[in-house]
């Protein structure tokens, strides 16, 4: 990937020194959206991996409560990866080698955590540590993993190319957004080293618990402020870019669906994040200067009366948090849907079915996602009127999702389906998201939520949407656009192993959660519910899920190896290897030069003109001019 983003992309092995010179200027301080996109991708992938590792550690405690944990395995995994990657990178590939070093760093961090006697005496994880891993897993996966990858990486790299723009509207702002994200990430990592460890009040950080929590929470809040700033800068940039920098002829109804999803996502980030920023500031004040925004009077913690007398409201935090966090979950899914749509259209070789209705659904989804948040708060003592409101909006919001998914499935009908690796992931996304989404419905109705709230059913619900849902879509995107950035293809065999392995394991991990949830097993339990009589019947599943999770980890090795190996040795591809219609493939070299296009293309037709009757190829790029055959009019 190193040379990928540079103007001259075919570096011969004899000009390494040549490349070394430019490294810092070209990559680190670059303001080229492609380079920034790649930085986003690498950083986010590392965080994804880290968040996953935390969970693999937790799964040990859940499967074998109170038994010493073989730390060396869990730190060995990244160490192994690091060494292999370093080996692949050699000295020639700065970036790959750097990644190798980072993985070694990760394994160091994990080693530090698991060998810390205060947190893991005798290798046995303490509740403190379990809680802080849980909170950080959630935070890292959502804010440092998926969003930066889906929006920061794919959005940055692909959107300008797809709309025919030379770059983002504000390149410097773009870089600022990345570095702000970077800072946020570093702060979160640093918080593992402060006394008391990282934040341990759940990713939801409910007050009062979070206000009286250890140091780590303060850093968590600072980290969040940085991440929010990053997202705000990013979203302004995306919206302006999409509105202002569309190439001539690229009308809104000719935008690739992926761009639409990014557009709506940007609005969600822009308008939903600030309230959490405000809430973060208020929680910081509660923690640091003793205000009591979220702290009711007369709290007694372990016999001590707390000095909070302002009569604050714990529910205020929940409202401000969920006002962001519900739109946030659509931020996690919309870009995923966009990627899936691109891949499906390309691999069925036919236009998306009901493109317009999909676009309207996404917009509607965006609007609705601002007025459903309190479905996370049914158990906080809600009266009938207001709960009716939120139940209704929650049911309504499921409709556009259904429309989009249905349109995608119907798009398969009559196609000529190529089962490429990206397509496999995109196809698997549909039923997996289906399961996740459908299980959202019983949660969305207050009476059924009574039994299911805060049980593993919820965990199962949203992991089906984010893990075999979003994560699969992201994999699809990685396999699909990898050649664009590198000029090389990822290995297909390894890709298929990675796919089938992940598919099986994901279900092994998350399907049992529904069973446990229905049996009433609560989430966030350090011992996986071992003490509760109602959990006894389903306790054995904890081990099943853990094994599933570890196996899932093993299968990721195929991906990681494939990824780095292909950067260097992957098979070279033609300009438009997938035979795609959208500009990023059709209208510019692979990889694209600095400035993206040799000449800014002009757009003449809709995004998915595949298999147009009577045309020579089975795809008509958006910038191809003129009537193709008298009979057929271009579809917009």
């Amino acid at each position, binding site marked *: 990937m190193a040379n990928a983003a540079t103007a001259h992309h075919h570096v011969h092995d004899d000009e390494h020194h040549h490349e070394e010179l430019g490294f810092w200027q070209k990559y680190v301080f670059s303001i080229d959206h492609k380079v920034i996109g790649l930085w986003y991708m690498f950083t986010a992938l590392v965080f994804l991996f880290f968040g996953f590792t935390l969970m693999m550690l937790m799964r040990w405690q859940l499967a074998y409560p109170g038994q010493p944990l073989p730390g060396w395995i869990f730190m060995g995994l990244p160490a192994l990866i690091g060494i292999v990657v370093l080996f692949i990178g050699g000295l020639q590939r700065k970036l790959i080698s750097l990644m190798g070093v980072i993985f070694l760093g990760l394994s160091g961090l994990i080693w530090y955590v698991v060998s810390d006697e205060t947190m893991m005496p005798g290798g046995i994880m303490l509740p403190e540590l379990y809680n802080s891993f849980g909170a950080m897993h959630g935070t890292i996966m959502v804010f440092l993993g998926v969003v930066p990858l889906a929006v920061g990486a794919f959005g940055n790299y692909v959107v300008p190319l797809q709309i025919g*723009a*030379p*770059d983002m*509207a*504000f*390149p410097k702002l773009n870089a600022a957004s990345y570095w702000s994200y970077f800072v946020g990430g570093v702060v979160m990592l640093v918080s593992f080293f402060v006394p008391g460890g990282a934040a341990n009040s759940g990713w939801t950080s409910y007050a009062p618990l979070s206000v009286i929590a250890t140091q780590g929470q303060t850093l968590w809040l600072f980290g969040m402020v940085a991440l929010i700033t990053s997202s*705000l800068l990013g*979203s*302004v*940039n995306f*919206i*302006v870019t999409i*509105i*202002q*920098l569309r190439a001539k002829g690229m009308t809104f109804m000719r935008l690739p669906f992926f761009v639409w999803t990014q557009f709506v996502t940007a609005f969600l980030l*822009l*308008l*939903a*994040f*600030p*309230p959490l*920023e*405000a*809430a973060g*500031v*208020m929680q910081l*004040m509660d923690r640091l*200067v*003793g*205000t*009591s*925004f979220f702290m009711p009077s007369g709290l007694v913690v372990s016999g001590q009366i707390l000095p909070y*007398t*302002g*009569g*604050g*409201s714990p529910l*205020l935090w929940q*409202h*401000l948090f969920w*006002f962001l966090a519900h739109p946030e979950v659509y931020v996690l899914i919309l870009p995923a849907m966009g990627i899936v749509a691109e891949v499906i259209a390309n691999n069925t070789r036919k236009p998306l079915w009901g493109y317009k209705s999909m676009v309207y659904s996404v917009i509607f989804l965006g609007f609705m996602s601002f007025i459903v948040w309190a479905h996370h708060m049914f158990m906080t003592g809600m009266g009938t009127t207001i709960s009716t409101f939120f139940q209704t909006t929650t049911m309504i919001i499921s409709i556009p999702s259904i429309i989009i998914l249905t349109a995608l499935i119907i798009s398969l009908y009559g196609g000529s389906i190529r089962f490429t690796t990206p397509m496999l992931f995109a196809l698997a996304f549909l039923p997996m998201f289906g399961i996740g989404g459908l299980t959202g419905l019983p949660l969305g109705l207050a009476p059924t939520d009574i039994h299911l709230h805060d049980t593993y059913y919820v965990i199962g619900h949203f992991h089906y949407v984010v893990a075999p849902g979003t994560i699969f879509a992201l994999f699809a995107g990685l396999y699909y656009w990898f050649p664009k950035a590198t000029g090389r293809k990822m290995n297909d065999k390894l890709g298929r192993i990675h796919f089938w392995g992940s598919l099986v394991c994901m279900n092994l991990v998350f399907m049992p959660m529904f069973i446990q949830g229905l049996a009433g097993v609560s989430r966030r339990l350090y011992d996986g519910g071992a003490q509760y009589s109602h959990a006894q019947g389903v306790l054995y599943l904890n081990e099943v899920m853990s094994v599933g999770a570890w196996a899932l980890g093993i299968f990721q090795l195929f991906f990681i190896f494939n990824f780095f190996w292909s950067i260097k040795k992957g098979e070279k591809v033609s300009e438009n290897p997938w035979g795609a219609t959208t500009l990023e493939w059709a209208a510019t070299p692979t990889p694209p030069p600095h*400035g*993206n*296009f040799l000449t*800014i293309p002009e757009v003449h037709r809709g995004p998915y003109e595949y298999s147009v009757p009577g045309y020579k190829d089975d795809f008509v790029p958006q910038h191809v001019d003129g009537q193709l055959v008298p009979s057929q009019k271009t579809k917009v």
Partner: protein
Amino acid sequence: MQIPYTVATRPDTGLFNAKLGVWLFLASEVMLFGALFSSYILLRVGAPTWPHGYDLLNVPLATFNTVVLITSSITMVMAWASLMMKDFKKYRIYMGSTFLLGVVFLIVKGFEYGGKFSHGIFPSESTFYAIYFTLTGLHGLHVIGGMIVNAYFWGSGSKMWKSEPERFTNRVEVAGLYWHFVDLVWIFLFPALYLL
């Protein structure tokens, strides 16, 4: 390759990038302050008793500050207008006074805060003060941010007037939009905290 519409406006939208950008930024600012106002409402409605701002805070001082901000708003818009009329000297005067008015505002705020602190009143005093300090503090930060920008466009930034006058005018207009927004927030802060 040049990024289009940094200066010229895009025909179909009638906007140049920065202008759309700043409006979007302001939109997010609306939500930021909105959350704080919402918290204010929620906490006040929930509280058994709530003091009247005018019993605890110095209304005349705040009124004076309101006038200061309003005035700075008009000097700001005049600065831009002078550029439109190609009168750079006037621009310097107006922009300069906008900056100075900002300084005045902060000094007055300083006195206000100082007064409270000297009586040992801090945000932890009560939820009213917590909200008061948070809202005015955040607003203060926005004022400072705006002043930095204005200072830049008054000083070294204004070199651009020679090279690209139109672009410079745009920049000043954008800076103005932000500054007026800061004023606008105060227009709502003032009654909410001091007069009710």
